[in-house]
């Protein structure tokens, strides 16, 4: 584990070194570290932001300075972070509970303009791409790029497809796509370069909800294939 400054008001904690080797184990470690840091409630800390193998800690320098009293604020904060995280590793390694969320997806042709491209890269029939995409177990690596966009690991490696050379100016809300080795969902209409293979009727992002996103980093996700009829019903 390493802790590095991100400017004068944030730190990045590198919880594990190699994310790609075992994303599932990395996300477990990050999630456990996140819960420990939340529980530690370090004075002056404003918010925590997990992404892949890291957690960023944003803090108020003046607040940390008051809490640190005579100590050098950065050193004091580092010590508090380290003790929060070692207390965890010393304790029993019970796995952190992670929500399991099912996302209904209609893989119909009208929602899947890039399905044939994915199929040809994979050397599979389109139906087989759908079957494999909807039977894999995924995890959210992080949420970002645009508010509510989940980047997920767990895509069967044969379905990995490079992003489109020319991104689309408008990707419809709910579009499910493949970008490299990850799969993701566009929470609202936006530009985007991922290969679109389906669409969910769920509203992934809604500012009237708190939290405003359905998915959080670490969550486990499965896609359930649905018909166009069911899509239309769920969209209402």
């Amino acid at each position: 584990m390493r802790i590095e400054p991100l400017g004068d008001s944030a730190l990045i904690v590198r919880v594990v070194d190699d994310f790609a080797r075992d994303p599932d184990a990395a996300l477990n470690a990050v999630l456990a570290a996140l819960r420990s840091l939340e529980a530690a409630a370090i004075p002056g800390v404003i918010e925590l932001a997990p992404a892949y193998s890291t957690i960023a800690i944003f803090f108020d320098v003046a607040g940390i300075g008051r809490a640190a009293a005579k100590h050098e604020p950065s050193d004091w904060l580092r010590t508090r972070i380290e003790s929060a995280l070692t207390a965890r590793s010393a304790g029993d390694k019970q796995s952190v509970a992670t929500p399991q969320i099912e996302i209904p997806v209609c893989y119909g042709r009208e929602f899947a303009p890039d399905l044939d491209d994915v199929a040809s890269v994979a050397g599979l029939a389109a139906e087989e791409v759908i079957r494999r995409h909807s039977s894999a177990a995924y995890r959210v690596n992080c949420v970002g790029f645009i508010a509510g966009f989940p980047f997920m690991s767990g895509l069967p490696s044969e379905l990995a497809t490079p992003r489109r050379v020319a991104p689309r100016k408008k990707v419809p809300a709910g579009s499910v796509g493949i970008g490299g080795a990850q799969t993701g969902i566009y929470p609202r209409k936006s530009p985007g370069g991922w290969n679109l293979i389906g669409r969910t009727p769920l509203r992934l992002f809604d500012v009237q909800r708190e939290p405003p996103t359905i998915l959080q980093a670490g969550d486990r996700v499965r896609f359930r294939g649905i018909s166009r009829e069911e899509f239309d019903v769920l969209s209402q």
Partner: protein
Amino acid sequence: MNVFVRSAGFLTSVQDLGRTGFRQSGISIGGALDSHALRVANALVGNKDSAAGLEATLGTLRLRFDDQRVVAWCGGAFAVRIGEENLPPGHAGLVAKDEELIMTAPKTGSRAWLAISGGIDVPPVLGSRSTDLRGNFGGHEGRALRDGDVLPLGERSALPVRVAEMFGDRRIAEWTAPSAWVTTAARDRFLRVVRGPDWARFREEAQTSLAGAPFTVTLDSDRMAARLDGPDLPRLDPTDLLSEAVAPGTLQVPPNGKPILLLGDCQTIGGYPKIAHVITVDLPIAAQLWPGDLVRFLEVTLPDAQELLREREENFARFRVGLSLQMS
């Protein structure tokens, strides 16, 4: 009670200190690009730090109020008039019912923050009244202001009313805030930086060029980022990095070697290597950058950057105490 937008100008939006606590959902902090300037303006009119004001870009803003309000502004070298009277930056001024406030285009700098006593009382979304222009939520209908918009104002506290009484025949307060806080475009465009997490991933020539060489702000700059042209900043190893947190002030370098300085509306995560990070007390200078401007970077140590920020916060706390004595 309302403020009527007679002319919305180039890009004006409702902003407060930003939306914190939702980075996990990918929501940018947003808010006033120079949140300190908005805090100072709020203090001058007797508002809380967190009251919402207006961020004007390139001016040409005209407002009318349907009751008496105290206003103050900070930022670029704009000219602001209340009726026929000039309102200098960092001074509280009284606007009468049905009178116009006019902000013309700036001589230097690009943005200004206007606080109105009572604050702009749009409904908070996820704990903030800031307009998220990319996400189209918050502020006034999730968008930049248009001519003819009407914005609700909060109840005036007793404080600005007393300030108004203290003005007597004058309409502009004599007291002011430190000039470095209120006229940010007048400051040298040297941005102090600390090394970024990926500093060691860059070639020595990149590290040398960053400190000292001038960079030009390019046309594709906005509230998300100031994109810069200048010497290439090559990295040692072209492999992509996993995305991780970025923040306003992050100086990231895409494969073309041209740095991007992230501002308040930036994404919450990014995968480009981060060569450096502009220190918080210099973000007000970054918030004034406009295409064509030249900017240079100067490295400082992290303890120095934090000490400068701590000092500014102490000075701001003292300034607030001083103001409340002045107004009591």
